[in-house]
């Protein structure tokens, strides 16, 4: 996947350069500025991610969101997912591990949904770009949605278990 990303960026850059050197220079400086802009917050965020994940080990989570944990389990999973941020390549194997170690489908679905959609840690950064209120609504609506989606997924998949 990264290869495709780098490949397409490079090809487009070369096309851009052959068509208009000035524009390409500007594009490069804009790219650098957006990169530099996000760096300070990003560096802080990864340490917070590291801390929360180090404290909330999968074993700890799965003991709370077991199959019989019901609606409270879903709620707890949603909150954990909203607070924590995981890179996708960690999030899904973790979800799989949780399922195998006894967590229920709706609970894991809620966790995955809020993990990807809701970011408490990144809220300040998001607010910088779209404003506090809009960022709050986006996260809040996504949180509620994750909850509903979890219940539906639980009903659809739960029967086969």
């Amino acid at each position: 996947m990264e290869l495709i990303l780098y490949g397409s960026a490079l090809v487009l850059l070369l096309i851009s350069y052959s068509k208009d050197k000035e524009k390409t220079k500007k594009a490069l400086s804009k790219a650098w500025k957006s990169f530099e802009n996000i760096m300070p917050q990003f560096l802080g965020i990864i340490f917070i991610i590291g801390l929360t994940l180090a404290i909330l080990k999968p074993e700890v989570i799965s003991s709370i969101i077991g199959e019989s944990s019901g609606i409270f389990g879903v709620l707890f999973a949603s909150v954990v997912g909203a607070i924590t941020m995981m890179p996708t390549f960690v999030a899904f194997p973790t979800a799989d591990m949780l399922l195998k170690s006894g967590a229920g489908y709706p609970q894991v679905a809620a966790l995955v949904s809020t993990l990807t959609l809701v970011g408490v840690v990144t809220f300040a950064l998001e607010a910088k770009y779209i404003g506090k209120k809009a960022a709050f609504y986006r996260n809040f609506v996504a949180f509620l949605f994750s909850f509903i989606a979890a219940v539906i997924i639980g009903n659809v998949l739960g029967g086969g278990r």
Partner: protein
Amino acid sequence: MKRILRRYTFALCAFLITTSVILFNREIGVRSFVIAGGAFKQMLGVLPPIMLLLGLMDEWIPRKTMMKYMGNDSGLMGIVFAILIGSLAAGPMYAAFPFTLVLLRKGVKFSNIVIFMNAWCVTKIPTLVFELTALGYAFTVTRLLINLPGIILMGYLVEWLLSKDEIDKIYLDAEKMEQRA
């Protein structure tokens, strides 16, 4: 120098807190650093090409074109484009924020911007591939079928929750931010 120090205060604090955790609980502290390092490496892997594409898009796609395809009167086409751009992306959610800035400046409808952000989070192709391999296709497909209408609905809901003045202000602030950058 002072400006740099001030901008990085948050990062520095987070670093110091994590370091001090090592003193109290070696295991958790070290684990934190290992996980943070992994996240850092993943981010550095995808950020440069994303930012490059962002810069190129900003330079080459005129505001008029963007408004036509994703602006206030873009209707269904705007939604499709928002989901498409979001899905083709890679990288964590926070990599999407600089993109939203460019979309705001190009006059993209606000609901489409929210749809784009949420699509970046859930229907992103690399995410789907990971999900498929880890959780199987029943889980992934069910989630996708709920998420697709969900992210569209959420886009309109968030736009509806904000007043016109508030939305106008977001666009104005985006303009200012670009000038400062």
